[in-house]
């Protein structure tokens, strides 16, 4: 299925290369889309070396034309984001404010000013946390596509990577998370691979993060991953697996 309108695609084809040279990225990728109630956020990422690097930056926009950089959330903010109830969908308004109240740990006195316990998080920050979470939890690349470069000491795209064969691309052992963990170690049955001959494409869909999809064209160096969804993990997966 398609998730970008032709208008958004046309805008992105023009604007992302400009963004790329402004920031000095070697490459930019479309990360996907976070769906909200009244609007969706298109997300892109820019890298200097490879998708595995620590310093890659994320960008978001609503229409494909006006892009803003996503902030790098601090650990305290990430913790606060986790307290937003999972059922609260993104609204589609980047300035929307979520209010989260910390619980007083047992044995401690509540602070004098009760407002110290509440934290306000704007939606663009929440979206940044979601993107980071999904990227860390499920983003996948083929094994051998990005390897540690011995001279530079950073993960680099492997220029001799000739792609996965059709057989290999369907096997979870040929895929790894960005941090290096093999895809075959994910919850059994939560990743489904499928070959689509009409597009010469193999796709891997995640059921724990519905909307995540890693893909490759077998025997070529074309591969990538994408996420189109509401940003929530499927915590009912134990029940929903057939």
């Amino acid at each position: 299925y398609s998730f970008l309108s032709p208008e958004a695609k046309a805008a992105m084809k023009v604007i992302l290369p400009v963004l790329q040279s402004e920031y000095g990225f070697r490459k930019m990728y479309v990360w996907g889309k976070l769906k909200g109630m009244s609007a969706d956020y298109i997300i892109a990422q820019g890298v200097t070396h490879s998708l595995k690097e620590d310093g890659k930056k994320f960008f978001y926009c609503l229409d494909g034309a006006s892009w803003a950089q996503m902030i790098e959330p601090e650990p305290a903010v990430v913790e606060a984001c986790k307290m937003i109830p999972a059922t609260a969908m993104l609204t589609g308004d980047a300035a929307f404010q979520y209010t989260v109240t910390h619980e007083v740990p047992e044995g401690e006195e509540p602070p004098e000013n009760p407002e110290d316990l509440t934290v306000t998080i704007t939606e663009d920050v929440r979206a940044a946390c979601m993107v980071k979470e999904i990227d860390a939890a499920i983003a996948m690349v083929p094994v051998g596509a990005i390897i540690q470069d011995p001279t530079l000491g950073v993960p680099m795209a492997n220029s001799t990577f000739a792609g996965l064969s059709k057989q290999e691309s369907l096997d979870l052992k040929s895929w790894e998370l960005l941090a290096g963990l093999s895809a075959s170690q994910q919850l059994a049955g939560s990743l489904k691979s499928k070959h689509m001959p009409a597009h010469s494409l193999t796709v891997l869909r995640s059921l724990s993060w519905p909307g995540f999809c890693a893909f490759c064209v077998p025997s070529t160096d074309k591969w990538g991953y994408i996420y189109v969804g509401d940003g929530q993990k499927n915590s009912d997966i134990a029940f929903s697996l057939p």
Partner: protein
Amino acid sequence: MDSAVAVAKAKLMQADANGMSLHDHLSATVAKIIAEDPENPLEVFEQISLAVKKQATLPRKEYLQTTPAPPPPELVGKRDLFRAKPELPEDAEFPNVVEELATFENLGTGLVRDDAYVLKASMAKLTADKGLRTVRFFGKILGTERDYYVVEGAYAEEPEEDEGEGEPPAPDPKAVPPEENGTGVNKFRYWVCNELGEPWVELPMAKPAAITSARELKKHFTGRLDAAVVAHPPFPGTEKDYLRAQIARILHDTYVAPGGMFSFEEDSEEEPKPIVPTEEWEAPEPEEMAEPSAWVHFYSTILKVGRVSKPPKEEAEEEEEEEA
């Protein structure tokens, strides 16, 4: 001097557990560099070395394949669709599938552009084969093994039910009876296929027990209609009943029309009154249409028992509550 070289070479040619020796590996790596002639061989030397090591243990089998694989069945089905020119029945209302899907594509959702044409051909075949009067693309439902494409359709006149072999199973007297074909949740029939180009399979009618049970469930579809739906409390039926129940719930919850566009036909004697387009209705401005209040549900809500209309009353019976 010679013996030192000989000793060194012998050491390099020592084969390890896999039968590869350092000497073989180095010569293979150098041969690969000469053959492929990369721009900066020193920079990518380690990567080439790794590739050679990997190839030594895993030869690329696909190049060794001699017998050609049979064509994928889904592509054959699609090819046949493009070739066929089905004749639609005269009174059939066939939608402009490509245009409708293009509208969705402009919104950033919907099927891949190519699928629109295959879908049109596929729906035309279904309409011609079954003699349907109306047909509509309902959507695509993803499954773990295979996906479903779903089409909604209606006959001009409900066909006679086949008796089949032997008697159909006697309906459970305690169960809420399903609504007749052509009414309520069963107003339309639904056909599914896993890939466009495969023959369409009709889903069974929606049963109230399946609908009420589906409300409690959250299960992935596998893509196989006869798959068991493993849940607690047990689901009455297999995946095709679960799919049909979900389709009914989705339709009745989400199918909306602009307010005022349709109204009840005042002069009709049928009960409930049929819905017809309102004459002289003008679409409001886009800003007004962006408000949820400008839209209305087209179909009634499904009651708690799993039907749209109340089941026929029997003598001694407890009250049925309407869904709030």
